[in-house]
């Protein structure tokens, strides 16, 4: 499994990439693998205000459903409409499988997030 070193990770298996004052968020390779075939990604609308740890959407797999938690506070600036083809998240979780871009409301709360090494330890890899 692949965990790019330039990303930050949460204990809920989201990844985050900072692009200026924008946080790009998706789920990790481990998360997509554990969920299995993803069939629907339901994301909150552009403009939704989120506090850190708020739910920004849900991801439905054939067998199970999982909430998505925002690692940062801010406003949803963009959602990935290409995820109407939800299996993209299985195939390419870090690039085409990104889910939302959140405009940060303050400084990014990245201290509590993990780097790739810490995340690998968390999932026992």
């Amino acid at each position, binding site marked *: 499994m692949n965990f790019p070193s330039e990303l930050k990770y949460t204990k809920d298996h989201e990844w985050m990439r900072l692009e200026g004052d924008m946080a790009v968020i998706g789920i990790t390779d481990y998360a997509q693998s554990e969920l*299995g*075939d993803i*069939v*629907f990604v*339901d994301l909150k609308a552009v403009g939704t205000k989120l506090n850190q740890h708020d739910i920004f959407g*849900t991801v*439905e797999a*054939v*067998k199970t*459903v999982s909430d998505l938690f925002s690692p940062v506070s801010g406003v949803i600036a963009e959602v990935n409409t290409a995820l109407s083809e939800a299996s993209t998240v299985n195939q390419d979780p870090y690039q085409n499988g990104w889910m939302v871009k959140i405009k940060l409301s303050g400084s990014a709360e990245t201290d509590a997030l993990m780097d790739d090494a810490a995340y690998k330890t968390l999932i026992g890899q």
Partner: protein
Amino acid sequence: MKHTPFYQIHKSAGAKLIDFGGFEMPVQYEGIIAEHKAVRNSVGVFDVSHMGEIEVKGTNALAFLQRITTNDVSKLAQGQAQYTAMLYQNQKDIMDGGVVDDLIVYKIADDDYFLIVNASNKDKDFAWMQRNQIFNLTLTDRSDDLSLLAVQGPNAERTLQKITDVDLSKIEYYHFTRGVLAGVEMMISRTGYTGEPGFEICFENGHAEKVWNALFESGKEFDIKPIGLGARDTLRTEMGYSLYGHEIDETTNPVEAGLGWITKLDKGAFNGKEACEKVKANPARKLVGFVLKNKSIARQGFEMMDEAGNKIGVVCSGTMSPSLEKPIGTGYVLLPFAKAGSKVFINIRGKAEEAEVVKTPFLKKS
């Protein structure tokens, strides 16, 4: 946790394992959708050895089975099998007519029957059977000795015919025979839980690896695949088949579950009969299938509502249908909403998602 004789094979095949009925079982190998399609389009093998096998022998075997099951066992010919259910009666804190388990009865001879029951219910089933025990009857739990594989799909018969001298084309639906396959003496029955043509084979545990390897060697040309419980569930849901713990359990009556066709009220006395007659005369709710308009999936226990938001039912099963590429499901609804075409709503994480009641099977097979 318990393991079937195929446990190491599953592990080396890269299966994701889960607890199911006390057994560590494969939920998927390469992925539920790919496995589902393999069974619909070619052939797949399910390890269902966790299921329970019970022998019922003796001169009173027929009388006993007529008493504890809902279907008419007297209609069975030698070599024929029957889908049926056991119901509760006069059991403290359990409603009369509640389902103990659904099962298949195989008639080997007039005084010799074989039962296949759900893994998670096996001990409860056996205890219930012992409570209903009568003279001249021997009950034997063979579950720990026997392996069971389901070989399902349009290429199942071709796969099996290459490794047996038994003429499989002569075995009719819900019939079985004893014979040698892959060099192993076994029971071969034309039964399954997928809606595809296929067989279930039952043999002593010691032959497990030999049979598995022979199947995969023979099925190579059809791209045969091992299939996990995840696809087993999507396949059965598309066909509208009941799963114990979802559509049926101790709190459901078989008549409201759409199992009137295995509930023979004219065959004489059986456990739960009066309760079935009452439900038939005065049904309050009915099991239906539904298709959601949008993409969210309804899961077990979700509330079903009318347009005004009043509760009218509850979801039993829900999944994305890999064949139809739509979210489908089953649920109990009040009678006025049970007609095909009825508009219902399902509370999915606080959102009222529209669904239409449809006739099952969801997947119409030619």
